């Protein structure tokens, strides 16, 4: 009999989780006391205490790849709904020879499902995105965005096992929307596995259990992983297997510890069906090298950081991107 173990202590908002220590995400201070600012799991690392929320809505962050639905098209671009209080916006690339009567719906129309990368976010969380890809066919699994790091796993361990065992293409949106494509039965297994990860995200030993689960479910359905297609590396493109919940301060991580590195060409026109040949448009390098330097990494400054909201305590977070 297995006993499921918690990954860490469950804390509730207002619970004291440290004294005279550095504060991480989702914490606030009352004098020397550090308190939990959300319902989640306490994380104690290197003399810093933070809380990993167990649930919560996705808030757009620069560098995140997300999966969404085109909600509105106008002459200048597309609004994309990403299951967040905040939509993101894909601006059309204006080229000199563009004629204004070009209907953007010919590229993406309302209801199309796309993967896209959030490229900038302002203080009221308006965000722009780029690198769109239409995702056709397949199916969707939805999960609370806070559980996505578990779907990816440390060093992508969980995601790799899902891909390898099922033979499916899996595009993981940081916003909790996951697109899967492959044989019907195999996709079913992946969806079941993802839902199971969602239910048990707060436990230890999950990767092993999921590995066994996938094997059993594939066998039960008589499903076989097809021979691997040439890897579509764009699926890997924007995934950052972030350690659970922590968002590194962008100012100090200019691309060097980003797994996909800064030498990968970006800014290509991905607006074509995945089965077509890769069209190497040469806009690559120049575009993306700005990624790390959009101003000291865009610190997602909460208006809060400058003043205490109600009462005397700080809940802005000096060294970390907060909430």
């Amino acid at each position, binding site marked *: 009999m*297995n006993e*499921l173990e918690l990954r860490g202590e469950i804390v509730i908002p207002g619970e004291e989780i440290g004294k005279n220590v550095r504060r991480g995400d989702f914490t606030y201070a009352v004098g020397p006391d550090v308190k939990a600012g*959300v319902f989640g799991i306490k994380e104690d690392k290197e003399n810093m205490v933070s809380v990993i929320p167990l649930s919560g*809505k996705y808030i757009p962050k620069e560098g995140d790849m997300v999966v969404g639905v085109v909600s509105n098209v106008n002459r200048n671009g597309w609004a994309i709904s990403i299951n967040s*209080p905040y939509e993101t916006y894909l601006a059309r690339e204006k080229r000199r020879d563009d004629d204004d009567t070009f209907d953007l719906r010919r590229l993406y129309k309302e209801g199309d499902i796309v993967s896209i990368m959030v490229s900038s976010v302002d203080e009221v969380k308006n965000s722009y995105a780029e690198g769109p890809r239409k995702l056709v066919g397949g199916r969707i699994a939805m999960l609370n965005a806070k559980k996505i790091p578990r779907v990816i796993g440390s060093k992508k361990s969980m995601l790799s096992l899902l891909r390898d065992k099922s033979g499916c293409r899996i595009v993981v949106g940081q916003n909790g929307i996951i697109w899967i494509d492959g044989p019907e039965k195999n996709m079913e297994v992946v969806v079941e596995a993802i839902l199971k990860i969602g239910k048990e995200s707060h436990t230890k030993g999950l990767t092993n259990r999921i590995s066994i689960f996938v094997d059993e479910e594939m066998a039960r359905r008589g499903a076989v992983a097809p021979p691997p297609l040439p890897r579509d590396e764009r699926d890997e493109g924007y995934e950052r297997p972030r350690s659970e919940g922590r968002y590194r301060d962008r100012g100090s991580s200019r691309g060097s510890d980003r797994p996909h590195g800064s030498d990968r060409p970006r800014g290509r026109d991905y607006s074509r069906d995945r089965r077509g040949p890769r069209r190497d448009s040469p806009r690559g390098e120049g575009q993306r090298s700005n990624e790390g330097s959009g101003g000291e990494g865009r610190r997602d400054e909460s208006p809060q950081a400058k003043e205490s909201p109600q009462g005397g305590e700080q809940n802005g977070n000096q060294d970390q991107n907060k909430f």
Partner: protein
Amino acid sequence: MGGKSEVPLIVKGKRLDGRKADELRPIKIVAGTLNRADGSCYLEWGKNKILAAVYGPRELHPKHMQDNTQAVLRCRYNMAPFSVSERKRPGPDRRSVEISKVIREALERVVFLNYFPTSGIDVFMEVLQADAGTRCAALTAASVALADAGIPMKDMVAGCAAGKADDTIILDLNQEEDNFGQGDMPMGYIPSRDEIVLLQLDGEFTKDELEKAKTYAMDGCRKVYELQKEALKKKYAISKV
């Protein structure tokens, strides 16, 4: 609510339902019972049955209601038509609107609204069966639902009422005590911060009686708070597989 009732509400130190003056009714709290809401809480308090749900942060419409600096918190307390002895016509009445307001003001104290500019956070409380003390029960359930939704907050708010019957200060009035007693004082309190964020009173209290009622209510809130905490932790309690 007026002077002493005809039927004694307290006999030999015991109330009609057997409780002592400072005893709470039995309370059961379960977090996360609805699968579509972002956060939810089902609560039974004596004969009260309340279901609270939170949606948010989410896009707020109409646009002119949006606040560029923080989320807008909206609360709606609503009673089901069958929740009371004489059927209540569906829809908000003046009492529900007032209760919604004071609950919202209590919760605004603890939610970190400025992290979600322009968005809305909606808190809905449905009273499925009512037996006095519903606003405190609803506030209690709403706090748990907000935490369950992963909304960043400083702490939860616990609700509890104290009152007066037969010239005695009592904790947590039930329906008869509320109807025939001499006063009712609902309170919302944050124990860790020693802050009162909801307070109403109707009836006739002397200054001393008021002090005693305040102490009773705060104590009641502290007990309720422990139950709120337990409900959340229980949601992720590990059982053997």
